[in-house]
């Protein structure tokens, strides 16, 4: 029974991961078209991919937007989660639901709504719209992670700090914040990944100069099908793997996902 179960798991993982393996393998091929397995190995398509302004600019845009959005939502999330976890006021649960709600609104809907709203108020700067939109979609992750940290946090530490003469503000800075820092960092990293990966919202908001990398890849694929796409995708796969490993090191991936 246990062996069968293990075989099933192995099959599922193979099904999920095999396409990624193929993408990475193809990216190292020397042929001018996508072929698997590659007959000769080369880094030619990596060089090619980074020569394309579309990809270079897209990568830069995604990193900047993701970085800004993730930092902002980590800070906003810290405030929101601290209020929800620590202050006793009416409608706490409702507020938590509001902060988590972007998770359940379809991205496409939110993208259209934001496009319409920004046109209404005369907001035309694409990158401002993008950063704002990405703050909204990454905020739930930050709030959730920091709330999880608070749930695990024993308030006796704060009582101890108070008996040692620390004011409420000092207690927050010297005790609470350092102890929930893993949640804060995990929230920011998770937010970065979510932002980096986003298509449905971004696609309504980008212009020629603010194209993010997933959208750049999509638009390139419309007219070209060569291994440079595989190369840039491999770069993304490795970066995301790096972030996942970092999350695992900081808080443990299981805890991050709240299971």
């Amino acid at each position: 029974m246990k062996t069968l179960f293990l075989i099933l798991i192995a099959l599922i993982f193979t099904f999920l991961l095999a396409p990624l393996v193929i993408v990475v393998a193809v990216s190292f091929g020397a042929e001018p078209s996508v072929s698997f397995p590659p007959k000769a190995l080369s880094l030619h398509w990596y060089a090619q991919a980074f020569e394309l302004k579309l990809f270079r600019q897209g990568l830069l845009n995604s990193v900047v937007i993701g970085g800004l959005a993730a930092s902002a939502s980590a800070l906003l999330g810290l405030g929101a989660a601290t209020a929800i976890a620590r202050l006793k006021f009416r409608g706490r649960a409702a507020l938590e639901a509001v902060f988590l709600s972007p998770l359940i609104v379809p991205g496409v809907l939110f993208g259209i709504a934001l496009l319409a709203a920004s046109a209404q108020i005369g907001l035309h700067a694409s990158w401002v719209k993008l950063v704002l939109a990405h703050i909204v979609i990454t905020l739930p992750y930050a709030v959730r992670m920091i709330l999880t940290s608070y749930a695990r946090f024993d308030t006796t530490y704060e009582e101890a700090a108070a008996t040692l003469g620390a004011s409420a503000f000092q207690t927050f800075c010297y005790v609470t914040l350092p102890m929930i820092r893993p949640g804060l960092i995990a929230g920011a990293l998770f937010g970065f990944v979510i932002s980096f990966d986003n298509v449905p919202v971004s696609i309504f908001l980008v212009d020629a100069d603010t194209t993010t990398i997933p959208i750049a890849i999509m638009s390139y694929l419309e007219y070209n099908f060569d291994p440079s796409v595989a190369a840039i995708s491999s770069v993304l796969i490795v970066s995301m793997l790096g972030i996942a490993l970092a999350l695992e090191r900081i808080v443990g991936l299981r805890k991050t996902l709240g299971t």
Partner: protein
Amino acid sequence: MADIELRNISKSYGSTRVIDCLNLSIRSGEFVTLLGPSGCGKSTTLKAIAGLVQPDIGTVLVDGKDVTSLPVNQRNIGMVFQSLALFPHLTVGENIMFGLLRRGASKAEAKRRAASALDLVRLSDFFHRNPSQLSGGQQQRVALARAFVSKPAMMLLDEPLSALDRKLREDMQIEIRQLTRQLGVTAIFVTHDQHEAIVMSDRIAVMNLGRIEQIDRPEAIFERPRTPFVAHFVGVSNFFEGYVTESGFVEIKGGSGSIKLKAHGDNLCGTNVRVGLRPETAIVYSEGDGAPGDAILCGVTDAVYQGAQLSLDLVPVNTPDLCLRAKVPTANRPQSLGRLARGQKVLVHWPAESILLYPNS
């Protein structure tokens, strides 16, 4: 050093009254233990003194000054928590320096005083370690050092030893006692362990249902518990309904007869009482060994060897529905007593002054 006084303190959580109109006054330099079962309000009382719990009504006075609404961080206290609450993101030294820095000491001064506090608890080499690298007993001493390093007026200790094993706990009891004496600090200690309370305290306050049932020196609590609750809590396990006769005897009725014991109950003559007999004060004789006249002839139904003492379950021959427990020392026992095994017949006697009588209310 500080005098502490609680006046008519009450505290409720929802409909549960955790502290019920409690009065307590502690002299400067005294070591007082709040003793009681879990849920009796002892920890809440301690937190009310610390300022971590705001009483619904009542006043907390320190050196005659009302501090009831003074924020915790402005009170001059040192507290050790049950979980110790050593900050895991700081080293041992930084933990101890924390309070000094918050109270405005310079970094160099804090470092110097933290080092000398660590010296005092014999952990000088551990300044740069993380708390998690220390053993339970060492963590305990760090928590103590952190609490006393800023020379607080009072030390508040909330069951700090409950996580330690027995040997270490006994060592720490003595260490804490010596330390508070050496520092001359007023100490309030919370525990549910009667032995701990007796060993450490100048006075013990036994708490029940948010009130203090009795506050007194340890020997008075142990020998003359004022209520059946206190008696039960300090180890008196034989309780019976009885009647005090005119002739100075207390009579305990069983189904088929009664047993009579000589007792000091002159002021309770002719009334029904609850009788408490401490197992350790029993004296066991063999038959024909010159036992006093009011000794009770019993059969041994169970004998449990407990190391230093032997615990006997005894059933009086003429009232087999009663059951008495007696504990006799294993060492220096008269030869004539034999093995004290099941089925043996013995005479058991409680000296009149050891018999506890409580008027039936």
